[in-house]
C-alpha cells in the first residue's frame, strides 16, 4: 500500500516487518473468531425461515397498514403511566445516586479504602444489569404493575447517574472548596456552598439525559408485566392485532422523539 520501489529498493514503508506481521496476525485471529461466531449463529438458524422472511415481512407489513387510529383512545392512560415510570423512576434514582456519588468520589469519600469500593460496586452492579431484567425480577417480588417498573428504572439508573456525578465531583475546582473551608465552614456547609454549586449544571444535565433514556426503556417494560405502554404492545402482539401494534410503535416513536427534543432543549439551556 504505502510502499514505492525505486531502482528495486523500498523507499518508504509505514511499519517495519515485525509490526506489520503482528497486525496481519491480529486480523487473521479476528477473522477466524468472526467466522466461528457466524457458523454458530448459522447452525442455530432455520434457514428456510430466513429465506422466507421477505414474504413474512411483507405479510405482516400488509396487515399492519393502516394502523388502527381509533385505538389511540386506549393508549392515553398507558402513555401517562409510561411517563410516570420514567419521571418518578429518574427522581427516585437521583435521590439514591447522590449519596452514592459523594461516597464514590475520591475527594469527598469518607474512606477511600472501605467506603469507596462499596460505592463503586453499587455503581457497577446496577449499571450492568438491564432495566428489563430488573423489571423481570421486581415483577416477581413486588407484583406486576407500574410500581415494579418504576423501581426497576430507578435501580438501573443509580449506577449511570452516580458514575457521571462522581466524575463531575472529582473534576471540581478545589480552590473554591478551600475558600469556603477557610471561612470556618462546617463539612456540610463546605458541601452546600463549595461543591454543590459547582456540580449543579452537571447534575441537571445528567438528570435530563437519564430521563430521556428512561422514557425509551420504560416503553418496553410492559413486556414483562411492569406497566406502561409495553403492556398494550404485548397484548396486541399476543393477539396478532398488527394494526394496533403499528399504532403503538408510532406512538412510542413520537414519544421518543419528543423526549429527545425536550432533553436537547434543556441541556442546551444549561450548557
Amino acid at each position: 500500500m504505502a510502499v514505492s520501489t525505486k531502482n528495486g529498493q523500498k523507499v518508504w514503508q509505514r511499519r517495519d516487518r515485525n509490526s506489520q506481521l503482528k497486525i496481519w496476525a491480529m486480523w487473521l485471529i479476528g477473522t477466524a473468531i468472526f467466522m466461528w461466531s457466524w457458523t454458530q449463529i448459522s447452525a442455530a438458524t432455520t434457514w428456510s425461515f430466513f429465506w422466507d422472511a421477505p414474504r413474512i415481512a411483507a405479510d405482516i407489513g400488509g396487515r399492519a397498514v393502516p394502523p388502527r387510529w381509533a385505538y389511540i383512545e386506549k393508549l392515553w392512560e398507558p402513555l401517562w403511566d409510561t411517563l410516570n415510570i420514567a419521571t418518578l423512576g429518574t427522581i427516585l434514582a437521583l435521590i439514591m445516586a447522590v449519596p452514592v456519588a459523594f461516597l464514590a468520589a475520591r475527594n469527598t469519600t469518607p474512606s477511600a479504602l472501605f467506603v469507596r469500593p462499596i460505592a463503586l460496586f453499587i455503581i457497577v452492579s446496577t449499571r450492568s444489569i438491564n432495566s428489563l431484567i430488573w423489571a423481570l425480577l421486581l415483577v416477581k417480588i413486588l407484583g406486576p404493575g407500574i410500581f415494579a417498573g418504576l423501581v426497576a428504572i430507578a435501580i438501573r439508573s443509580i449506577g449511570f447517574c452516580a458514575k457521571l456525578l462522581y466524575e463531575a465531583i472529582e473534576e471540581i475546582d478545589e480552590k473554591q472548596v478551600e475558600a469556603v473551608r477557610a471561612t470556618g465552614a462546617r463539612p456540610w456547609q463546605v458541601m452546600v456552598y463549595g461543591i454543590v454549586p459547582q456540580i449543579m449544571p452537571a447534575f441537571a444535565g445528567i438528570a435530563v439525559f437519564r430521563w430521556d433514556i428512561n422514557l425509551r426503556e420504560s416503553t418496553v417494560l410492559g413486556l414483562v408485566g411492569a406497566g406502561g405502554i409495553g403492556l398494550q404492545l404485548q397484548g396486541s402482539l399476543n393477539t396478532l392485532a398488527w394494526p394496533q401494534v403499528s399504532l403503538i410503535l408510532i406512538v412510542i416513536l413520537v414519544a421518543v422523539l419528543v423526549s429527545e427534543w425536550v432533553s436537547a432543549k434543556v441541556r442546551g439551556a444549561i450548557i
Partner: protein
Amino acid sequence: MSVALDARLGQPWKKPPFVKSPALRWTLIIGSILYLILALNSIEVNWARVYRGLDRGWQFFVAFTNPDFTSRANDIRLGLTESAVMTLASTVVGIGVSIPIGLGAARNISVLPVYLTCRAIIAVSRALNEIVVAILLVAIFGFGPMAGFLTLSFATIGFLSKLLAEEIEDMDKVQAEAVRATGGTWLQRYVFGIHPQVVPRLIGLSMYRLDINFRESAVLGIVGAGGIGATLNTAFDRYEFDTAAAILLVIIGAVMVLEYLSGIIRAKVQ
C-alpha cells in the same frame, strides 16, 4: 464606598438561585409540584402484595450469597456462548455497515441526497428500541440468535455511524485537502486523508459498542432472540432464584471484564 455596596452592607448573603429568571423558576417549581401530585395519585401500589413479595425478595437476596452455578451449568454455558457469539458477530457486521453510512452522513464529504438518506437511516435506528426491533425480527425470522444478531447489528449502525460522522465533520480539513491536491481519487482521499484521523476514535467507539452489545444481548433472550436472557427468564419463571443469581453474577462479571478490556484498548489507541 459605592452606593450599591452601602445598600448591601449588613444584609445577609444569599446563594444565587440556579435558574436565574424568577418567572421561569416559579413556573418550574409549581409545575413540578403539580405534576408530582398528579403522578403520585395515579400510581396504585398494592402494599399487601408488596408485603407478601418481600419474602421472595429476601429469598432472592439470600440466593445472591449462595448462587447455584452447577445444577444448570450447561444451560448457562450455552446461553453465555450464544450471547458472546451474537455480540461479536453483530459488532463486526455493524462496524462494517456503519463506516459507509457514517461517511455518507458527514456533511463535509458527502453530497446532500446521500447525506439525507444516511441521516434518516441513523435516526430510525436510534429511535427504535432494541427490544422492539427484536420483537419484530423474531416475528419475521423466527426464534434464535439470528434475530438477535440482526437486532444488535441494526442498533450498532445508529450509534456508530452517528458518532463517526460527527468525528469526520470535526476533522482537520487540511490533510484531506493535501491528498486531494496530489490528485488522489475519492477513495484515496478517504484512505490516506480521512481514515487515519478518525481511526483511533473508531476503534474506541467499536470497543464501547461491543460492551453495550453484550449487555443488550443479555436481555434479547427475554423476547426470544437468543442468548443468556432466555436462560435467565426461564430461571425466574421457575422461581430458581439461586440459578438466576448465578446468571446475574456471570453477566456482571462478564460486563466488568469487557469494560476493563475495552478501557485498556481505548486508552492504548487514544
